[in-house]
């Protein structure tokens, strides 16, 4: 009797679904307050290993690859674009705008919150301004374009005429383009912030790149209340997005192998497997920046010649069975160092200015840097040669893949860096 009772009790307990706590699934795209941003970290053991490898780097004269591919490395090719949708996480900014809607809904619905401006801060290359532009279109808001650099340099404090009549929401996606690190370059942004913070130009959403935000925050001590940012994409979020893409190829099974030891990269195809430490390191290195992670992940993938022939049609439509297993090799090394001549502070300053303004036209760069034009030009071409800077139609940027290595280098040298 007692045994039976005991048994029924345990069964009841097991089936007692009403009391069962339901843990909500972690949102992939999620905006949080600026101070709640959490940089993905690596476990202590892995951090110690990284520290050891950085120590070894001090003694390393040149960067030599250490990977051992079981076959001949020459047989491997980088990822063809037609396979990207199956092997890279798909970034849909629409998800970002929905997340932004969620975080801004309260502010939008209550006109008496006392805050006329909301700031959305994003890491470099995180798609912050793209999301804001999309969101502005969805919400029928006026997008405020930044003034010309020459206008900023002239010392004018006249705001762009595109600010709407009072009552209509406006969105300024790139606050970092509203100033220049020049003695005349702060006038217009000072005026704008004064009007925006006091509500004199109505209600608006201001987007800013995190480096520019750090700089402006130190100068103007901006409000800390209505500041939001996209929460970091940790290894779990990245794997979720990647798995979605991989599962689209319903009739092809992708097998990801580590180039250095031939071992399988775990966690992509099955939820049962533990997430490979590479993804933790990737998320930590990219400080949770999804676009950077995708970019770096893409760079790491290699295919053998025969697998390059896999056509999109093979992946999507076959006769209901897996027609092939495609091996994707992956290099697990993440190089965190930037090899600059240790005495050349000019190069560091160029990189810093470029990150601060999220890229600058060459001629403007010459005007705001504290060196002569020829020195600037030679520094810039040296950085272009190193692959740390890219020039797109006369505008220079720090390349995506080098962004966090450069950030680390700036941080080590006590330059102002972002908090994200």
């Amino acid at each position: 009797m007692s045994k039976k009772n005991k048994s029924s009790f345990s069964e009841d307990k097991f089936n007692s679904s009403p009391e069962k706590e339901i843990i909500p699934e972690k949102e992939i795209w999620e905006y949080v307050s600026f101070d709640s941003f959490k940089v993905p970290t690596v476990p202590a053991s892995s951090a110690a290993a990284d520290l050891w490898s950085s120590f070894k780097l001090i003694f390393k004269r040149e960067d030599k690859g250490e990977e051992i591919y079981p076959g001949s490395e020459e047989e491997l090719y980088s990822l063809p674009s037609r396979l990207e949708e199956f092997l890279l996480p798909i970034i849909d900014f629409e998800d970002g705008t929905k997340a932004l809607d969620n975080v801004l809904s309260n502010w939008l619905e209550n006109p008496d919150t006392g805050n006329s401006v909301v700031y959305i801060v994003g890491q470099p290359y995180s798609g912050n301004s793209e999301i804001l532009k999309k969101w502005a279109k969805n919400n029928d808001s006026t997008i405020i374009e930044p003034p010309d650099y020459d206008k900023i340099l002239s010392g004018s404090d006249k705001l762009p005429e595109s600010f709407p009549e009072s009552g209509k929401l406006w969105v300024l996606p790139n606050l970092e383009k509203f100033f220049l690190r020049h003695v005349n370059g702060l006038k217009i942004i000072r005026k704008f912030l004064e009007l925006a913070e006091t509500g004199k130009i109505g209600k608006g959403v201001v987007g800013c790149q995190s480096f520019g935000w750090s700089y402006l925050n130190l100068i103007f001590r901006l409000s800390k209340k209505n500041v939001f940012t996209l929460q970091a994409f940790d290894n779990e979020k990245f794997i979720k997005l990647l798995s979605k893409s991989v599962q689209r190829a319903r009739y092809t099974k992708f097998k990801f192998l580590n180039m250095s030891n031939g071992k399988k990269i775990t966690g992509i195809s099955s939820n049962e497997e533990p997430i490979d430490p590479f993804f933790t390191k990737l998320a930590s290195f990219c400080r949770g920046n999804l676009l950077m992670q995708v970019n770096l992940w893409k760079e790491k993938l290699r295919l053998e010649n025969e697998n390059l022939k896999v056509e999109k049609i093979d992946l999507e439509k076959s006769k209901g069975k897996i027609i092939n297993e495609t091996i994707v090799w992956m290099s697990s090394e993440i190089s965190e160092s930037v090899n600059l001549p240790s005495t050349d502070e000019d190069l560091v300053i160029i990189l810093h200015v470029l990150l601060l303004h999220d890229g600058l036209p060459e001629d403007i760069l010459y005007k705001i840097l504290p060196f002569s034009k020829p020195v600037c030009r030679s520094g810039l071409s040296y950085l272009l040669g190193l692959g740390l800077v890219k020039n797109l139609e006369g505008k220079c940027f720090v390349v995506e893949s080098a962004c966090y290595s450069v950030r680390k280098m700036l941080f080590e040298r006590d330059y102002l860096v972002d908090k994200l």
Partner: protein
Amino acid sequence: MSIKNKDSHLFKTLELWDFVELGIIIVLSILIVAALQHGLRWLSGRLHGQKKLTLLAIVPFVRLFVIIVSIMIIVPLVIEPSFQNMAALLGTVGLALGFALKDYASSLIAGIVAVGERNYRNGDWIRVGDIYGEVYHVGMRTVEVITPDDDRVLIPHSMLWNISVINSNNGEPRLLCVADFYLEPDHDSRKVVEILEDLALTSAYLYFNSPIKVVLKEKPWGTHYRLKAYPVSVTQQFGFVSDLTMRGKSSLSEQGFKFAFVSPIISET
């Protein structure tokens, strides 16, 4: 009798092997000191900020340690280590240093004091009299300073006893820089202060976690403005001041401020 004999000999009778042993110890000490000095200096060249300066500051300590250890090994090899012998030896050495090598000994002792008190360390920017430069090497007798004009100056440590040593960064990776501006007296000072603050805030060399100050003083010929701020690294001090001065001049001129002209007679007085 045997005790008397033993005590009466200050130095041990040295054989060939003892000389070889002494030679090996001395050569090894020199090599270790040289290797450590070069190694630590090379390593510090690959680091930045506080880490670099801390490593550089270790160099004289390491050298002093190796020298003391070497002496402690050598002395018992050469001298019978009895109380009388040590007293006689120290007395003789003291007498020699006191009379013949007074200045040299003073510098050596001051060198040990400088290392111990950390009055200046490698990487510090110091001013001794008219000499201003970076401490490159704290030796046993002298401190080697490299001036901004790339002159190598050897200053005896003994100067410590009677001359003030001004240490501009005192082991920190940055130091205060001052850019001077002299304007005619009739102007709006608030506007100038605003411009100068923006000037510092927009300099690519600025270290943000330290304050920016503008100090002004009225003179018979005009107003003297001193813009004070810290650059990211000590090595940028001249670039920083030049940048502030250059941009300050053009910015103040653009805004219509006139620079004061001081005749040589007034400036000398």
